[in-house]
């Protein structure tokens, strides 16, 4: 089955049109985000369709997709919880925050929970070290997170709620975050 509906194929063409004629390959990352916004990860079919839109081989698209950590080629939860543990956050207690997230999410935390809800990602510096330790839920920032707050954020996700981030609007889930990353609507 096609990943992109006819309507989304039209969206894909508009994404291509952001770049100069003959340079449509520049649409690679936004197109990969577009297929990720449909499937919650980048599947083989998604790679094939991006290749089709750009006139490339699937392997050429896969070679690019596999380079970038925000494009998820493996099974991924509906929500991705990223905990920065780089130095500035580590100095402010990030290890304990990561451990709390790991415990709360349980086994296979770094892959995907059995119910398909959550994926935990140990993140590198998120460029918000004034608010360390920093956690992102579907790339929306939560500042100065304590282990207790970390557990609350995860419990909220389990109840089907998305907590208010420290700035901006929280995406509904990882799929909507991918839609925003494709440079499409940001819901406001």
């Amino acid at each position, binding site marked *: 089955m096609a990943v992109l509906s006819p309507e989304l194929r039209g969206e894909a063409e508009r994404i291509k049109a*952001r*770049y*100069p004629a003959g*340079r449509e*390959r*520049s*649409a*690679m*990352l*936004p197109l*990969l*985000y577009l297929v990720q916004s449909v499937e919650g990860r980048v599947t083989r079919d998604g790679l094939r369709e991006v290749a089709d839109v*750009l006139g490339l081989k699937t392997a050429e698209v896969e*070679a*690019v997709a596999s*380079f*970038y*950590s*925000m*494009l998820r080629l493996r099974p991924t939860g509906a929500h991705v919880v*990223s905990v920065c*543990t*780089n*130095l*500035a956050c*580590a*100095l*402010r207690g990030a290890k304990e925050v990561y451990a709390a997230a790991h415990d709360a999410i349980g086994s296979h935390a770094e892959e995907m929970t059995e119910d398909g809800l959550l994926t935990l990602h140990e*993140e*590198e*510096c*998120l*460029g*918000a*070290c*004034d*608010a*360390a330790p920093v956690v*992102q839920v579907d*790339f*929306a*920032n939560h500042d100065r997170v304590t282990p207790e707050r970390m557990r609350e954020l995860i419990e909220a996700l389990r109840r089907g709620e998305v907590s208010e*981030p420290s*700035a*901006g609007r929280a*995406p509904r889930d990882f799929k909507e*975050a991918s839609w*925003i*990353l494709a*440079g499409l609507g*940001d819901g*406001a």
Partner: protein
Amino acid sequence: MDPRRAGGRGVTTDRIITRNWGNPDVFHVDGYVANGGYAGLKKALAMAPEDVIELVKGSGLRGRGGAGFPTGVKWSFVPQDTGKPTYVVCNFDESEPGTFNNRELVDREPHQLLEGLAIAAYAVRCHNAYIYVRGEFLHQGTIVRRAVEEAYDRGFLGKGICGSDFDLDVVPHRGAGAYICGEETGLLNSLEGFRGQPRQRPPFPAVEGLYASPTVINNVETLCNVPHILENGADWFRGFGTAKSPGTKVFSVSGKVERPGNYEVPMGTPFRVLLEEHAGGVLGGKALKAWTPGGSSTPMLTAEHLDVGLDFESLQAAGSLLGTGAAIVLDETDCVVEAARRLLAFYAHESCGKCTPCREGTWWAVRVLSRIEEGLGRPEDLPIMNDLGRNILFRAFCPLADGAVSPITSTLTYFREEYEAHVREGRCPFTGSGPGRRIEEVAS
């Protein structure tokens, strides 16, 4: 209220690009214009492009992304007779650990960046510019997108900007999670739809950059300075900072300080002033152990270097670098071996894999640092670390590898006894973790 927001720190009035941070109105285009915004662009449009380049050259503005190359000189390298289009790319892929000044510049006053970008584009006769936004900056990507829309609506971007015959289209483009894309040629490959691996230079981007065409790549903070130079002149700008490092720098201060945050100070300001007067000193009144002047890729300095001036030359003379202007502060209770281990884990993760010394060397360094930290260090581990540093430094294609060596060599230089204690005692002296033992002879 955050004293920085009130603009009432009482420390300095020498601020250029953060002077409006106390005023939330400047976030939107109307408030920005009401506070004098886009006047620099209008001034530029009334000048010949060559004169804009000369003015920025004369100001001595140097790139704020790490390399410190003179901005006007960079612009002057763009050839105008190739028959190809010229591109300007703003590097907003801020990801050097400890650095968050570009993020806050966009958070608070995104039009300052767009104005600087438009002036740069006019100066090099470019009509298509890109803003490469770090993928993880989901919110900032949205801010940029909306600010670009506002600027189009008000005629500061698009066709016939401010009634002139200058046209400029700006396309925001989001990255997807790769530190190496902050390196300018890696960024160009990423923007072209490839893996973000760095390119061979020469040819330099000024001659063959994006789509093999002449390209200028500037950091966010660099571009934010440009409107002020246009408005107030080169001599005014040179009134800030030092002779060789004119202007100010927005320093990101994080880790063990009372008030982590971004602070704009004149170049050459002693670190002591930044730490004590702006960031409120070391957290909880503890003693300073170590700090990075310009992000994790710059060699750490110590309490002996409190009076070193924060500018390109002074920091180099002290054995480090200005880098991105990001001070991660460690206090006396923090373990430098663990700090080095965590940073090396970062470089090992972010190494693009192209060059063996970087790909294998960082991986090996993590293994050795981990066993030292865990109390399983061997007497020969310190020479191994020295050796690793020597065999990575300047032996890879891009500066990521050189950056990875900084935490190794600087901590070995200043804190050798701490490494030795880990190996000798068989445990981390700070956390106590490790089996514990006694080794008398530790090689050096």
